[in-house]
């Protein structure tokens, strides 16, 4: 897939939550560039900070207890310094969001139509009638049959897959430059997952959007992403073009994630799993955040020093002191 200019540039993004036990450092120093038409996947377990890092882009984090620092530059504007009014002109208009779990992310007491049209009316100044017509087109676009009828229905009257499609229609409504899809397919069964993935890809090609695809499943990423960011404990451990990540894995954590994928033909069987628990964001381990669970923590610096994110190949960065032997890179 061809990629264009940088549309979104994230630098040293940090998110902290005040908790009773002290500050929880949920996202620590995440940086990346997103190009027009590109699909960036952010991969990590739950608790890795992947969702929070994207909510922070448009400051959808409750502040307090949250605090967002760093730079998020969209078309020359740092979103983190924008006044609330200007930020609201970005939300939904230039950065669209698709949340996981459409059951709770859609408003149960408003009709589907209302939830799709309100953004159109607000951002594009469409009349109620025009917004409704556009909403009908959007539902049609995301593959919802009989859109006219669905507009008048409530979320609980739709199936899970249909709800997710409504979420997508809401995210796409104003044709944003950046679409963030947070575990958009996790709650769905495999066939519908595939349909949704295909749908987003098609729309992306048609509309030229950049997509940030958040998932815990490297398997989903394989077919869709141009580039992958592997997050753990709030930090980026590895960043690479999707093909490189699979062909030339450098970080032990990424290797562990790949090894734990179910193997085709041995459905459901997980070969290797990473032992231990993800780190506590209030009490992050010293040194590399992954070292307590790492099978290769031989370097004395692992437990004391934070490995910098260094470029090991063009466009391939990894935060690890250890050189994964070629055979372990698959």
């Amino acid at each position: 897939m061809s990629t264009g200019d940088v549309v979104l540039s994230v630098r040293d993004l940090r998110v902290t939550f005040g908790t009773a036990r002290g500050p929880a450092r949920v996202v620590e120093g995440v940086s990346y560039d997103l190009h027009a038409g590109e699909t960036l996947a952010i991969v990590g377990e739950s608790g890795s900070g992947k969702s929070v890092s994207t909510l922070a882009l448009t400051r959808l984090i409750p502040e307090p207890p949250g605090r967002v620092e760093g730079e998020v530059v969209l078309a020359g504007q740092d979103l983190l310094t924008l006044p609330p009014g200007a930020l609201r002109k970005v939300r939904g208009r230039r950065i669209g969001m698709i949340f996981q779990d459409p059951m709770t992310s859609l408003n149960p007491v408003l009709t589907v139509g209302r939830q799709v049209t309100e953004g159109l009316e607000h951002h594009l100044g469409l009349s109620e009638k025009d917004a409704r017509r556009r909403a009908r087109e959007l539902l049609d676009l995301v593959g919802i049959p009989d859109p006219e009828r669905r507009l008048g229905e409530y979320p609980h009257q739709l199936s899970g897959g249909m709800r997710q499609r409504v979420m997508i229609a809401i995210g796409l409504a104003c044709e944003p430059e950046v679409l963030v899809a947070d575990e958009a397919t996790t709650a769905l069964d495999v066939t519908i997952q595939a349909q949704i993935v295909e749908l987003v890809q098609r729309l992306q090609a048609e509309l030229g959007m950049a997509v940030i695809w958040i998932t815990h499943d490297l398997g989903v990423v394989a077919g869709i992403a141009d580039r992958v960011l592997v997050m753990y404990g709030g930090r980026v451990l590895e960043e690479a073009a999707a093909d490189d990540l699979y062909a030339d894995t450098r970080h032990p954590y990424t290797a562990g994630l790949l090894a734990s994928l179910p193997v085709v033909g041995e459905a459901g069987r997980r070969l290797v799993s990473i032992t231990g628990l993800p780190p506590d964001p209030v009490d992050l381990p010293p040194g590399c955040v992954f070292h307590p669970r790492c099978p290769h923590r031989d370097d004395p610096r692992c437990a004391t020093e934070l490995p910098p994110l260094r470029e090991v190949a063009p466009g391939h960065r990894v935060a690890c002191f250890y050189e994964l032997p070629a055979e372990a890179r698959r």
Partner: protein
Amino acid sequence: MTDVALPPHRSRTRDVLGVLSKNRLAIVGLVVLLLLGVVALFGEWLAPHSPTRTNIPNRLEPPSLTHPFGTDELGRDILSRVLVAARVSLQVGFIAVGLSLAVGVTIGLVAGYYGRFVDTALMRFMDMVFAFPAILLAIAILAVLGPGIRNAMIAIGIVYTPIFARVTRGSVLSVREEDYVRASRSVGASGPRIIVRHVLPNVMGPIIVQTSLSLAFAILSEAALSFLGLGVQPPDPAWGRMLAEARGFVRVAWWMGVFPGLAIVVTVMAFNLLGDGLRDALDPRQKSVIESRGHLL
């Protein structure tokens, strides 16, 4: 909404005490209640004067150093009466709530655990009792039993039984299908044994919260009944009674009406603060409050 990892598991009791100790208002409530407990136990010794001895020449004296809360229409020391009355208020509160606790929790456990017909029958019955406004039901019960402190306890106890039944049943339903309960059932443990061993300990949180909040309402109810002359009988001092006696004199002696009322407010508030604190620590779903607060008036 965020995918922040949960802190490592710690002991439940310690968690509860931890949360509670950080809640300054709950601590205030607890301290006030401990002081009230002391007053209830040693009221007669703490009281500067006799709570019942009349002293007509001294009647309706405004607050002074000798009588910090003033005297009433019979010259009795209001401070002493307020102190001594703490016992009867707490006593009625605790016994009445103890009654609703015992009956309500049993009904809730049985209904929730056995389900089906037993559940429907018991809970519908509780609904019926719940359909009467608290104070009116208490009055109606006292009309049958006759006025007096013992009957007031029974009446208040009956009134607050359905809340405990509901709270308990709700919690039982949520733990009934947990693995450990299923496991005990599958190895043939008897119903009552499972209830006492496994279900009860796991529904204690909401029940404790409800107990604290119900104590607040029970004390309010006792005050109301005594105010109406259906609760504590003269010459024993009770805050509600003192307010009833004050009614005719507030124009000339505001202190007669103010201090017993403040005593009620402070006591009730202490139980409410403690209950809120316990709820934050034990029952984050906040189910219990909904029903009791609606029932207050």
